[in-house]
Structure formats: structure tokens, C-alpha cells
């Protein structure tokens, strides 16, 4: 019983066949897994290692190199507040604090109900809308805590990958 959807497994198989090496498919495989399982834990690592014929250790090493893969499950929605230099100059810290208070979660943490995770992230390349905020992978630009709460009510966009 695979942890991944049949469609994702198919995608990975296709990549494994068409990419120069099986390992070239690893990053995409991890992204799919993170999106569907919201974590890259032990079981997830072993599943991918099996799919691509890699050692669990090497998959784990890659998974734990990139910021967007998390060992522990993240919330269903992810709010990322940029703390890059540009956003810092436009008061990112206060903004992160406001949002955290409004959503009842501290940066780097996930709400108890697993609804959402609040991240402080390095520069996300949306500096003209500093302090920039992302919801999942949508750039919100300057957003008030209230506006963010409203957005959170809507259905999530496709998580990319």
C-alpha cells in the first residue's frame, strides 16, 4: 500500500524512466511526497528509496538538506512570513508577530488542530511587497492579519510540485 497517490507514483515512474538517472527524479518525488503527506518522515523516506532504488540514507540526506521538506508533519495550510533584509527594513518582525497572534500560533509552529503552520522564511523574492507573506505557494504581498484570516477560509490552491 503506497503512501503516495497512484498519479504521483506514475509521475515518479515516468521521471525515473525519462531522466538521465533515477536520482534525478528524487527532488520531484520528495516534493510530491511532502505535498501529499505534509512530511518526509521515516516511512516516506523508505517509500521513495524503494521507488527510485536508492538507499534510505541518501534519500534522508537530501530530504534534510532542503528547507521545504519537514520531518514532522506541517499544517494543512502554510503561512510563510519573509524575514529577508528587504522585509526586515519594512518591519517583517512586527508583521510576523501580529500574524502569529492573530492566528494563535508562534513562528515555526503548527496549530494543535494541524490546520496551519507559520514559518519565518528567508527572502522569497517578493521584496517590492515587503513585508511579504506567502500562503502555501501563493504570493500575498502586503497582507493584514485580518485579510490573511479571510484568505485562510478559502480552499487551498494547488500546492505546486
Amino acid at each position, binding site marked *: 500500500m503506497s503512501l503516495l497517490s497512484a498519479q504521483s507514483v506514475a509521475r515518479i515512474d515516468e521521471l525515473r524512466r525519462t531522466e538521465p538517472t533515477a536520482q534525478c527524479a528524487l527532488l520531484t518525488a520528495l516534493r510530491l511526497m511532502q505535498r501529499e503527506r505534509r512530511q518526509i518522515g*521515516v516511512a516516506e*523516506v523508505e517509500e521513495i528509496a524503494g521507488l527510485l532504488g*536508492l*538507499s*534510505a*540514507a*541518501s534519500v*534522508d*540526506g537530501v530530504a*534534510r*538538506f532542503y528547507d521545504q521538506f519537514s520531518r514532522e508533519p506541517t499544517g494543512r495550510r502554510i503561512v510563510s512570513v519573509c524575514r529577508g533584509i528587504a522585509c526586515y527594513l519594512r518591519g517583517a518582525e512586527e508583521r510576523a508577530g501580529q500574524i502569529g497572534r492573530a492566528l494563535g500560533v508562534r513562528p515555526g509552529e503548527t496549530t494543535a488542530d494541524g490546520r496551519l503552520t507559520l514559518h519565518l522564511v528567508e527572502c522569497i523574492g517578493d521584496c517590492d511587497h515587503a513585508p511579504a507573506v506567502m500562503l502555501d505557494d501563493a504570493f500575498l504581498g502586503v497582507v493584514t492579519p485580518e485579510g490573511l484570516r479571510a484568505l485562510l477560509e478559502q480552499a487551498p490552491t494547488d500546492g505546486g510540485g
Partner: protein
Amino acid sequence: MPLVTIDEQPLEVEPGTLIIQAADRLGIEVPRFCYHPDLRPEGNCRMCLVEVKGYPRLAVACATPVVDGMIVSTPHTSALAQGAVRGVLEFLLVNHPLDCPICDQAGECSLQDFYMHPHYGLHSSEVDPSEKVRKRKAIDLGPRVVLDSERCVMCSRCVRFSAEVSGASELQFVQRGNHVELKAFEDRALADPYAGNLVDICPVGALTSKDFRFKCRVWHLEHTDSICAGCSTGCNLRIDHYRGEIQRLVPRRNPAVNRSWLCDEGRLSYRALSAAPRLTQPRVRHDGTHDDVDWEEALAAADQGLHAARTVGRPTAVAALASTSATNEALLLFKRYVASTFVAPLLDCRFGQEDRWVEEREDALLRRRDKHPNTRGAMLLDLAETPDGGLRQMLARAREGAIDAALLLYYPPLVRQEDPATLEALAALLHAVPFSVVLTTHEGAWCRGASVVLPVAAWSEEVGTYTNYAGVVQRVGQALAPPGAARSAVQVLGDLLARAGRARASTAPGALFAELVATVPTYAGLAYESLVSRAADVYPPEGRMAYGQEGFAGH
């Protein structure tokens, strides 16, 4: 051929040679952590920075190939390079726990060696212990290896070995920046049968041996170069012993045989020597029971018994079987004694199918199916000539009553268990023949039936030569003295020859090897003195880090 000048010393090298290899050949020390002659260079530790004339920035000697006319200055002659290397070493120590007192690597640790070198180290720390990044310590990675990630310098030698050489890929880095940590997935025990090498190539105390853990300090060890007797590959190794006990075995580099590696079975083979009680006194059987006697009496008994068998004069009255774990020199004397003393004896070296197995490899790296170090040597002495000869044949003939006496030279295997069938066959043979002389090392139920038991030296207790599966002749070293009254097989066989009225052969290793060369055409031109392995590179070398003489042996 490109000409390179390092610290004013010119050297001509073949194209593609790395600066660090050229420097090693010139005997110029270039400090390094990540470079290893048998691994792909990665250039991550930055300790081997050197100044190359005309280069905009310092180059890493371990990844920069020599080009013709290159002029290189190492930290020993270049202030710039020296400053850089000092800086790198300081960085390496920023988060190092400095727990040398409880670290088994202390004494053969590159960090220690470099820090104590006036050109690279001896700075005072500017970091509070309270400021250091703490990581996990004493992580159990199975039966061979203990990991201390605080001591790791992230040189990735182990990661590369695991991926490139053994193929197990069980180690990888996790996290980023100064939180990078070496990790086996979920701290699972390493299944790699070559895991011991991870400890050897770790330049610091991050990966230490569980077998050697806390046994003794490395500066107490005495070293004896020898050859592994675990299988017919004949890996070059070094016996590290202290107060008359073997503490550990470590590989010596020999690109022609084992590169820098040694399998875990071979690495732990010394344990077999103390697994069963040793024979320390000659024994002669009087009405059913063995009595300890002195050599004089034992040799006399052996000689008389065999003399009787000899005088029967009937063909194949004597079965003579010598293990292929014996040295070439012992086998030579064994053959000479038997051939010159008996008429058409059954003379063989096969307890099982050594002569077939010596051709088969057990895995892609080192291990071979034949677990005897000297089968090829015995075969070159024509001790496996007759088809389907050996123990089975002798037993059959003995049961027919066609054999009056048996002479056995037997060594228990150092890796794996001895095949019970073989031991049964041996016991049966001894019971089937009226008189038998056994030369062996350990107590064993199988030799109860022997008329005379002569205790001989085991591996690591005698000198001599082995010929590996490929015909490479290598010298075996003596680290310890044989226990009790035990003597080297060469000496015992020499005495028997003398008693049999043959001129007492010189048992000096050099002299015997000369006779060997005269006897075996394949050995023509070899000299005992020149047999010392070309492995100038020992890991861990006495108080120094591994130096590679040969280039990176890609595969």
C-alpha cells in the same frame, strides 16, 4: 611528462597527477582531511590549500591536477597558504568538543597532529565551550562502529567509501551549515561487511571501532606488518599488539592487492586464535590417553612411528596432509620430509576443495571463497596434483587398511567455522590408521585419536610467506611468541627431517625461501628481502595521517 616544482623541489609526474600526490612523492607534508588515495577527491576540507604561481586564489592540492611548469608553495614555504591553513584548522576546532581524554583516536588523530604542528596550529581558542554547537555522541551503529558526530569534520571520506567502494550507502550528511551531521538512517546498524574501513579512514574520532573501543591507548601499541590469513586474497595488514595480546588489525595500503581496505571478517580474525584453548605441550598417546611430554620424547616417538611405517615399504603406506594455511616454507619442508622419507606416499593439501574455491571470489571487493591464505602456494608446490585427492581419498584408503601412518599439519580457519564434516573425516582418519602424527595449534576433539600431537605456532606467531590467489608472494610477520612449548611448524619439520637422517635443513626464513625459489619455477627471480609489500602507506600510520603513494585508483 609535466614538470612541477613544489617548495623549490622539481618533480616529473605523469599527466593527471594531483598536486597532493606529487607532494607526497616528494615527501612534502600537505595537511589533509578529505583526501584519500583510494577515494574520489572532493576538496571540501580546505586543509590542503597551496599557493600556485599565477593563480588568482589558493588552490586545493587534492583536486588540482599538475600542469607543466607549475610552481607550488605549500604552507611550509608560503605565508599566504600557511595563514589560510591555520584559519581552516581554527574553523575546524570552533565546534570541536575537545574530548581527547576519552577519544580512542587520540594519538593517531589528524586534528591533534595538525594542531600540534607550528605551521598549522598552536593557536589559543577564542570560543567558549558554552558557545559550541552540540551534537549527538556515542551513537551505536551496530557491531563494528560507534559514531560521535561532535568530533566529525565533515570530510565525507566515510560517505564516499560507503557510496563508491562498498556500495552500501549507509551514511549521509543531514542538515546544513554548522548543523551538518553525519547520520546513518535512523541510526540503523551498518550492514556493510566492510564497515571497519570507515573507522580506518576517519581522520578524527567521529567513527571509532567498537571492537577496539577503550581497549588501550594507541601510543602503547607495537606494530608488526603481516598478511591477513582469513582468505586467499592476502590483504596487507598490520598487527597492533600490546603486552603479548593482539589488540586490533588494520589494513596496510597495497594498491596491487587490497588498496586501503580490509573486510570485517579478516579484521576480527585474530579473535579465532583465542576462541579455543591452545596446545602448549607435545603429547604422546600411551594406552588410550594423551600425556604431555617434552619435545625430545615427542619427536622420538613421531620419528619411530613413522620409521616403522616407512620400513613397511609398501606403496602409499603413509598419508601426508598439510593445510594450505601453512606458510610456503612449512609446506616446502613438509613436502621434502614426506617425499624423501616415504615411498610413493599420499601427499596432498586438500581438506576440502581449496583448489577449486581459490578461483572463486565471494564479493565484488575483496573476499574470496577459499578461506586459506596460501592455497596457491601449496598448489605451486604440487600439493594438489592428483585429481580428487586429499582428505576424502586418504580416509577411504585408510578404511581399506591401506595406510599405516598419517602425518597431518592442520590449522583451524581464522574466519567462519570449520566444516564439521572435515573434522569428522579427520577424526575418522586418525582412528583408521595405526599411527599418526598431528601438527596443529589448538585443542580439538578430532585429534584425540592421534598417536603424537605436536603444538605449532599459529598465524602471527611465525614468519614466512603466503602466495595469494593471484600468485602474489607476500611476507608474514611474527608479532607474538608461540604459547608454552609450541614451536613453528618449520622448526618441527626441520627436526623431523634431521631425525630421519636427512641433512638438517636451515630453518632461516631467507634460506628456505631461496630453496623455494629454486624449487618453484614461478618464483624465479624473487628475493625474500624484496618481498616487503610495496604498501608504503599504512592506515593509521604510526602517529601520522594516511599518505597515498599511488594515485587515486578509480574503478
